[in-house]
């Protein structure tokens, strides 16, 4: 067993630490500069004001974008669940011609660069004549809602499918032996077992939708989402308000991811 003190191992630890720093330093800088007491982001850092958060909460277009993003993410989760959960059951339990192709097709939006899915969906909605701002102001636009749903269904499908593969079907048979019908078995036996996986995947979809920009870029109508609103600000000129918004987004993403990993861990612990 190599000791931790030998030079090779020490070198490994140092390089791993350096990479960690490389990954986190830029994020730390963004967060620290949200407390910067000057409207120009420059060295040296002058810590000690919350005024950029004040600017943020009074920025109506930013708030509207944030609200649009949340609505979009919730709708994307609902759609992805409605399609993804049945899809996972289909993958797990049924055979039909083209099943392999179906599985690969679902994965494409996660594997391909977002721009390809974005322009494909833009062409599609333009072809069928669905306006990008249709549904506004109820939703940010039906095309972007459907687009997020389409792109993120695979997250639910693969995560729930992976859970179903580990699910003991004997439990369902036992339920049937006890005279439960299929629906009772589903609600009382199958669903409770896969619930953490479903909720975890839903949270993941929520986070991914909240941050999605490549597909959104092409499908957005009149109302910007939060990442696009930030993007617009960046193109014009930078103030620490962007940092404050970025910090809020960071915190929300972190919270959902922590919740999600807890769920996955609880579920794994229970097996």
């Amino acid at each position, binding site marked *: 067993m*190599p000791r931790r003190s030998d030079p090779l191992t020490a070198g*490994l*630890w140092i390089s*791993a630490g350096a990479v*960690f720093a*490389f990954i986190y330093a*830029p*994020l730390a*800088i963004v967060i620290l500069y949200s407390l910067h007491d000057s409207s*120009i*982001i420059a*060295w*040296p*850092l002058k810590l000690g004001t919350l005024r950029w958060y004040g600017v943020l909460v009074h920025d109506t277009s930013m708030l509207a974008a944030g609200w649009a993003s949340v609505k979009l993410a919730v709708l994307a989760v609902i759609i992805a669940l409605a*399609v993804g959960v*049945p*899809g996972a059951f*289909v993958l797990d339990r*049924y*055979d*039909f011609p083209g099943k392999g192709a*179906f599985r690969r*097709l679902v*994965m*494409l*939006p996660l*594997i*391909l*660069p977002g*721009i*390809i*899915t974005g*322009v*494909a*969906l*833009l*062409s*599609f909605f333009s*072809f069928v004549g669905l306006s990008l701002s249709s549904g506004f102001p109820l939703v940010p636009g039906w095309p972007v809602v459907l687009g997020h*749903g*389409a792109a993120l*269904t695979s997250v639910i499908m*693969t995560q729930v499918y992976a859970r179903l593969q580990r699910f003991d079907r004997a439990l369902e048979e036992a339920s049937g032996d006890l005279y439960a*019908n299929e629906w009772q078995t589903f609600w009382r036996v199958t669903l409770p077992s896969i619930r953490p996986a479903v909720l975890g995947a839903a949270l*993941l979809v929520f986070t991914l939708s909240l*941050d999605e*920009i490549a597909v959104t870029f*092409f499908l957005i109508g009149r109302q910007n989402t939060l*990442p696009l609103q*930030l*993007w617009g600000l*960046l193109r014009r000129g*930078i103030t620490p308000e962007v940092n404050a918004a970025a910090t809020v*987004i*960071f915190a929300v*993403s972190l919270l959902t*991811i922590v919740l999600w*990993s807890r769920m*996955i*861990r609880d579920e794994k612990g229970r097996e």
Partner: protein
Amino acid sequence: MPAEGSPAGAPGDGTPAAGTPARATLVDRVRTNRRVKTLVASAIPVTWVVVLLLVPYALLLIQSFWRLRNGTLTHELTTENYRRLFGTSLYPATILYSAGVALRVTVFSLLLAFPVAYVLAFKVRKHKTLLYMAVIIPLWVSYVVRAYAWKIILGQQGILNGLLMSMGIIRTPLTVLLYSTAAVVLALTHIYTPFTLMPIYAVLDAIPPALKEASQDLYANRWRTFIHVILPLSLPGVVAGCTFAFVLSMGDFLAPQLLGGNDSALMVSNLVWSLFGVAYNWPLGAAVSVVMLALTLVLLWVAGRVEARGSYGGEARASVTDYAAPV
């Protein structure tokens, strides 16, 4: 919903059909016929995927053969877009340039990701999952924020310039940092290193410690153990990670736009973006997208073959989110 007590078995179902009545109602037949069940269960997911994924991707392909006449889209078929694409040096040069950027990002991401994955898999004893989560959390944290961070670091009035000047290393701010290919490569490396790390960590973590010990029992030193045992076994993960980094950075158009200055116009996805945007030439944009799509699919196919050949027992995983869960 039919009441309980309706017959649960039918000939096609494989269960004994003791109480099947002679005239089953339609609902009962649907409930019990395997084929009908498959149809009902798969109707929504399959229709959804066909309409919102297959049709749009197919439409992109069809559209790349449409003609643009006086700025309006016609449905006449033509190979003009592809002839224009391959007829001038602009488009192939753009694709090559993007591939070059993507290649550099891939190499740097691999060099950064491998040691971290190695340390996580073999050296870390406590809080392994927590540390793994710490590495991949930035993946799910706003892309815009990560790209923007480099803008405030590298800008002319940025933090790096300010720091270097206050330390007396430079007198005037460096203008070459931002708006360059190097800035794009740096930011993309930062963004895609965690992507590269996930599959590498997954394969390294799955290597049984006994293999390492066996190699050492046979008097291989650590270097030989690494070259002859660890490295070959890690290859599927390395291939998967490199594929993510290459494909995603080649298709990136936002970081180049923010950080690349004039160089960003040389990225193929920025070309697609402008063809679908200001230039309003969707058929040509579709043709460029189709070429990108084809290159990506070929790459994924090759990578899939290499992964399948190199993996031992472990099931090949298809996408980024498959790795995101704590292992």
